[in-house]
């Protein structure tokens, strides 16, 4: 990453008469678009930039230098699993025998693509201990929504219409309650105990015949394994509800625990976390949803199935919850995830969870003298500090996060989970070497020292990034969200 900021917008490079494309001659030019009725056409061409090709290339290349990716440096962003995105994944996703396929092409011309879909779906089922997966959901949140739709469809198929509540722990990602609301479910919050796990005694009175199910992340957002999971699943099942596994934290479970073996009925996986597909600055992701045996018929349409002759088909099921995507989901993301699984093989996948867990515990133990560790004991792939141990100089978690940027590290996730005021959530992933972790630990200790000796310098960090802290209050008070508005404001 460059420290020099490249701050131009493509619109500011535009000059009338320039052009960045070439197209073939119109061989059917006798048929002129001007024949269309004028009242159906736009009055003016859109005010898009007019730029030559090299200007476009330099513009976006310079812009990319303002960015920080996993390829740039260590990215210990808790709950996001910023692991290495192997290059072979990208090559396979760009394979020309797949990228040019139209999603509605006739059956028999897309067998290779369907085989990728089917094999990935079965690989995920094996890794998660589930019966079948749909790969149609576009992201984790979309997977959650789909999973909750499956749970509701299951209850409705039994004529059980009154199950409209879903239990969510107070430590859950905000997406859980938001997905429940979109799915028409009421959220009931269950409290955590001081050790960060679900309070079984608080759960018991919530379980009645209006409960559709319970959503859990395991390990939870504090990185702690919910060791009472068997009892919780038993209680929820006895009350007639289903257990939903939020796969956001699946990474440390690889090689150790399969959600389907520990009482979960429905789950999603974030391919962009556990299965190494790139985050792309916020998307595209992919959120496959798996179900245990007996729930397959509720999966969304369309489904990819294989017959006895090893032929692949796209099929619509009658009991399905319906369609949640136009076609078969983010196929090019699946190509990457399938490549990753094949690259690792069964013999390496099993080491993913253990090494991610080792890395997290190593950082935790190395820093707990300088940072407040609210919950001791072993963690899984991530853990949470509650800010600096010595808070006397008023240096906050935000300040620590910003100061880390000066040292060339991405910041951890901050102010989540909401259980602590100064949460600082660290997830290193299995790909990072001891040297990288040691470097991070050293810097975190340095920042703790700086917080004591020169707090103002930490509070005004970052100092060494392309831009300094931004005025987000002004941005929210007077939103300027297009170039047109920007010109009017002369910002």
């Amino acid at each position, binding site marked *: 990453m460059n420290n020099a900021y490249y701050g131009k917008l493509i619109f500011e490079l535009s000059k009338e008469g320039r052009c960045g494309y070439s197209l073939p001659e119109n061989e059917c030019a006798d048929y002129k678009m001007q024949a269309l009725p004028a009242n159906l056409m*736009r009055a003016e061409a859109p005010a898009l930039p007019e730029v030559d090709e090299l200007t476009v290339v330099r513009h976006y290349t310079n812009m990319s230098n303002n960015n920080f990716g996993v390829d740039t440096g260590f990215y210990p962003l808790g709950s996001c699993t910023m692991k290495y995105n192997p290059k072979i994944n990208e090559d396979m996703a760009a394979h020309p025998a797949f990228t040019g396929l139209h999603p509605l092409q006739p059956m*028999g011309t897309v067998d290779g693509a369907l085989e990728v879909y089917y094999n990935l779906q079965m690989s995920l089922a094996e*890794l998660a201990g589930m019966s079948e997966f749909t790969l149609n959901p576009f992201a984790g949140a979309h997977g959650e929504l789909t999973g909750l739709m499956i749970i509701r469809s299951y209850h409705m198929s039994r004529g059980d219409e009154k199950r409209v509540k879903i239990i969510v722990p107070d430590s859950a990602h905000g997406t859980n309650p938001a997905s429940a609301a979109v799915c028409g479910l009421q959220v009931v919050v269950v409290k955590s105990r001081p050790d960060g796990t679900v309070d079984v005694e608080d759960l018991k009175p919530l379980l009645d015949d209006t409960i559709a199910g319970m959503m859990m992340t395991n390990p939870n957002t504090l990185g702690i394994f919910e060791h009472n999971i068997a009892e919780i699943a038993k209680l929820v099942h006895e009350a007639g509800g289903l257990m939903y596994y939020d796969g956001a934290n699946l990474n440390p479970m690889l090689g150790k625990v399969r959600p389907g073996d520990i009482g979960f009925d429905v789950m999603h996986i974030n391919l962009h976390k556990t299965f190494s597909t790139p985050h792309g600055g916020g*998307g595209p992701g992919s959120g496959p949803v798996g179900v245990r045996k007996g729930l397959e018929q509720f999966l969304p349409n369309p489904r990819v199935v294989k017959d006895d002759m090893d032929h692949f088909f796209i099929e619509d099921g009658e009991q399905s919850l319906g369609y949640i995507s136009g076609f078969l989901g983010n196929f*090019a993301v699946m190509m990457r995830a399938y490549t990753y699984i094949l690259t690792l093989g069964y013999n390496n996948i099993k080491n993913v969870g253990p090494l991610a867990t080792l890395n997290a515990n190593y950082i935790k133990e190395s820093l707990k003298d300088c940072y407040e560790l609210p919950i001791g004991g*072993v963690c899984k792939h991530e853990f949470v500090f509650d800010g600096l141990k010595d808070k006397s100089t008023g240096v906050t978690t935000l300040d620590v996060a910003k100061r880390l940027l000066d040292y060339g590290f991405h910041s951890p996730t901050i102010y989540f989970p909401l259980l602590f005021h100064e949460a600082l959530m660290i997830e290193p992933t299995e790909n990072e070497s001891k040297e990288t972790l040691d470097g991070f630990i050293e810097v975190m200790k340095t920042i703790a020292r700086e917080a004591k000796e020169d707090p103002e310098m930490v509070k005004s960090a970052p100092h060494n990034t392309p831009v300094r802290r931004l005025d987000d209050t002004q941005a929210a008070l007077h939103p300027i969200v297009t170039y047109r508005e920007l010109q009017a404001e002369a910002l």
Partner: protein
Amino acid sequence: MAYKFFPHTDEDIRSMLNTCGAKSIDDLYSDVPSELVFKEDYDLPEAMSEIEIRQYFDYLGEQNTKLTCFMGAGCYDHYSPSVVNDIVRRSEFLTSYTPYQAEISQGTLQYIFEYQSMMAELTGMEVSNASMYDGCTATAEAMMMAVANAKKRNKVLISETVNPIVIRVVETYAKFHGVVVEKIAAEGGVTSRADFEAKIANDDVAGVIVATPNFYGILEDYTGWADLCHEHKALLIMNCVASALGVIKTPAEWGADVAVGDGQSLGIPMNFGGPYVGFLCTSKKLIRKMPGRIVGATKDADGKRTFVLTLQAREQHIRREKATSNICSNESLMALYVTIYMSLMGKKGLREVNELGYSGAHYLAEKLVKSGKFELAFPDKPFLNEFAVKTTQDIDMLQTIGALEGFNVGLKIADDTMLICVTEQRTKDEIDDLADLLIDPLPEEAENEETIEETV
């Protein structure tokens, strides 16, 4: 344990375990009850080298058939310039997270701001969000936005001329979200004005969803629709084909409140259905009701013009069950495809792309009709580059023979009707070959019969 993605040497592991006060990595899982631990090996293949992986995907790729594409119906075979595919692979863009740390994410924030600006120009609307999953879910989100905006109404009207693939996703969301979806009838390939007027008159409708161009490729005349919607306090939502917006009347010009659709037609490969990018644009007045992320301009501590995620208090990570939507992603990387594509094509390029499609489609349509074997399903209705034709021939047979000849001939949308699309990528030769094939699929019947039976 040595493996290319795991840098841990045995010595590293020993020393790290020592720091953790553990004897083995298993000790770090001591909190997991042993009966819950998976003790077998996964039933998966052994690790493959890159060479083996390439061979395997080449083999799988051979199971696909690359077809010359005359199919649209929501996914379009437009050309994406080399620059697009080169830049989107830059790992600074590819391997970064959502730009929460604005100081080291200006690249992502800048291009999203450009994307928002371009989508606003294209739709004519005042604001755009930072993008959504795809056109179907963006339309479903707009449906929920209309219901939230109306507060006490839970009915939405959707025209039967909207792509059925979009309608069925909207219906799924509606079913679970407690929204009643009523169809507005189609008549002669366009939405029935009389049916719309009758249904909106009940004053219980939160939003009305129509399409431009519609599923049949037709440019409908929506004069007066927005006024009628607003008179009855409903939002007008317009689902659009992004590329066509370069020339056709914009949602803003029709008076729509929300413009949605898929941005795939702006430089994103067909990719067997995804990833694409959904767009959702609206008025400034409704900005806080809009789902998804938004990037805004501001200044940094030194007074530099910079960009930042804004209006986040509407979103799921803060509002939880009261958020405007559960969406956490935006399809940033796909928005980058669109942004670079539009930078290159600019004002004129988009027009040219549409002209080429228009000319090719009208040339093909005329040729098919002249043959006597086809007629336009909706004669006299204006279309851009996609049109529906009726035929007495067996359309399944046409598709099968087409595939054998290397053509994706179009989509069967009824027993006697097919939908055909022509983009700038189709040459006159290809169009002529397709026309010949469709008009006379079995020139030497005897010879071909065997082959067909085999395929079927």
